[in-house]
């Protein structure tokens, strides 16, 4: 039985305000796998994450992205979300006056409605929420706070992972989730991500540093530089980068 990959990126070119950021990216991900994208600042890592989620500021100038057999680039951001694509933002946005739990319920119900499932009322949803919190070992302290308002950097990142846990995506993209976290917060977030790994769910972990990958062990590591994938390998590649930095990859020939 041949199964199409979950995500298939072919020769992806992306520009913002006329400047090309991604210059031909290829990536194939199967269900249940964890891929890490590493690379120096300005290499296009975050652009890749944003484009997969459908940020309107980026223009895809060439290439294709297929997700579960569908043309991902043809889908609106909310359609991608409802089809199971989730982006944990590098810079989560504040929504004043709206509690986290209300926001989460709105999101869950938008997705349930799309799937033809009945919407959850506040009480039913609270049950779901408590179960998820228990699974990742967190308390309910930020459920009744406004979305990301007044949150510390670490709390915002934790909140992204809580949303991931509740929305149960099939493809989770983590964009620099480790940035701004101290080591304890990093461990907490990584532990939560690890409990959310499953054969049906793939992770694309975008990070500058190897330290997150000490806690979330990837199946594959890819290095992005100047808008191209310059090296792919196993988890050991991350350690090599940690030891040598990124410069040695730039001088050599492009390896794909």
């Amino acid at each position: 039985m041949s199964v199409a990959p979950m995500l298939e990126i072919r020769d992806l070119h992306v520009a913002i305000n006329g400047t090309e950021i991604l210059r031909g990216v290829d990536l194939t991900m199967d269900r249940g796998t964890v891929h890490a994208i590493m690379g120096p600042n300005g290499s296009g890592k975050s652009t890749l994450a944003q484009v997969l989620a459908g940020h309107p500021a980026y223009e895809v100038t060439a290439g294709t992205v297929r997700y579960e057999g569908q043309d991902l680039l043809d889908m609106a951001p909310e359609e991608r979300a409802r089809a199971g694509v989730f982006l944990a933002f590098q810079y989560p946005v504040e929504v004043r006056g709206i509690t986290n739990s209300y926001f989460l319920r709105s999101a869950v119900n938008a997705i349930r409605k799309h799937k033809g499932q009945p919407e959850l009322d506040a009480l039913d949803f609270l049950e779901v929420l408590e179960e998820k919190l228990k699974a990742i070992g967190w308390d309910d302290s930020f459920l009744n706070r406004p979305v990301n308002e007044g949150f510390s950097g670490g709390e915002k990142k934790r909140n992204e992972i809580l949303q991931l846990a509740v929305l149960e995506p099939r493809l989770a993209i983590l964009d620099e989730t480790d940035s701004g976290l101290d080591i304890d917060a990093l461990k907490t977030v990584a532990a939560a991500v690890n409990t959310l790994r499953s054969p049906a769910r793939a992770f694309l972990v975008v990070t500058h540093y190897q330290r997150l990958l000490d806690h979330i062990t990837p199946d594959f590591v890819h290095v992005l530089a100047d808008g191209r994938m310059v090296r792919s390998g196993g988890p050991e590649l991350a350690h090599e980068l940690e030891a040598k930095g990124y410069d040695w990859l730039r001088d050599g020939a492009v390896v794909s």
Partner: protein
Amino acid sequence: MTSIEAQVLQPYKYGFETNIESEIVPPGLNEDVIRLISTKKGEPEWMLEWRLKAYRQWVRTTEPHWANVRYGPIDYQAISYYAAPKRGPELTSLSDVDPKLIETFDKLGIPIEEQKRLAGVAVDAVFDSVSVATTFRAELAKSGVIFCPISEAIREHPDLVREYLGSVVPANDNFFAALNSAVFTDGSFVYVPKGVRCPLELSTYFRINARATGQFERTLIIADAGSYVSYLEGCSAPTRDENQLHAAVVELVAHDDATIKYSTIQNWYPGDAEGRGGIYNFVTKRGKCAGRRSKISWTQVETGSAITWKYPGCILQGDDSIGEFYSVAVTSQRQQADTGTKMIHLGRNTRSTIVSKGISAGLGQNTYRGLVKILKGADGARNYSQCDSMLIGDRCGAHTFPYIDVRNSTAIMEHEASTSKIGEDQIFYLRQRGLSAEDAVSLIVNGFCKQVFRELPMEFAVEAQRLLGISLEGSVG
């Protein structure tokens, strides 16, 4: 226009016109017109004299232009000052109301037929210059509450009207108040006796229908000692190319330990995308906390009108009295609003709270203007003010003019202000979680206005939500 702007620039839904035979006096304003209005309303001589005095004051004053709004000159002689649907014999019950009027108010979501009336809400329906129906009057009378058109109160309760009319907003208060005092036609009168908690929400719905007319609403609410009343006004008008004037005066008086909660959902026709037509809403609203521990709370949701000029305020005269002002003002297309409040602290330990939320979209210009004045005798007075502006798109404007005048060193003043912009990034974040762009805008606007919406009576919070096209946050969560 960005996609976000398109979400908030929804077409006006109340622009229909009722085709009904009306009696309209010829345009123009002079003492004869005022005599005519007074005669049509069957008013006593003192009322006519009061009007004429106001008219003579109006003639001597000039239209104010300090507000941050721009409009062409108003020709006061081109406006008709009285328009009323023609009717047969005197109304004796609601079943005598012209079916066309019933249908009109039905379409506006204001059922005035007894069998369809809103549960728990008594309604006074004002069409152009006259009140056409007032529901639940008998039931209110059982607890001694008077709720009737002000025209009727002048005839039936002259002592109360004479005592209080103009006691909070004197005829010479300002140009528009003087004009209103001279020519006011209808509005509501409420009296809640000592110790009575008004058993129903009271509500007046104002509808402008006739062309080339002005509407001059006059409302007077008196809460006697220890009483409580919650009152709401709503309004709308047909879509027209011309500008129409709505110059209202509302006066509230709260005696010892009384509370008045006054809510407004203002949805006058705002004009079209090019700025043609729309209502000029020039309104003077003021409450006097005359008694100790009295409280007046203004809540307004202002979504309509081409121009809004409105500063509902409180005179905090009684010791320990409380004034509140909660406002959401939305300006889109070419709407201009200059609105805010005045809190005048006279009594000891008086407290006031101001929460103002301005939302600007399209080419809308939104100004908050507020005065907090603490007078010498107001020992221990406190004020908290919060002014937040939200911009949608990059062609609109938000302006804030807070005036603070403190003459007592024991006063405690707090002021907070913020300006934010709904950005593509915020919308994208919410869409990435599965919400549609419309729902994303709704959620953001809803969160922004939440502090104000929760002050509205439940029945009307739903109306406000519908008006802004937004979903109210559930009670749990």
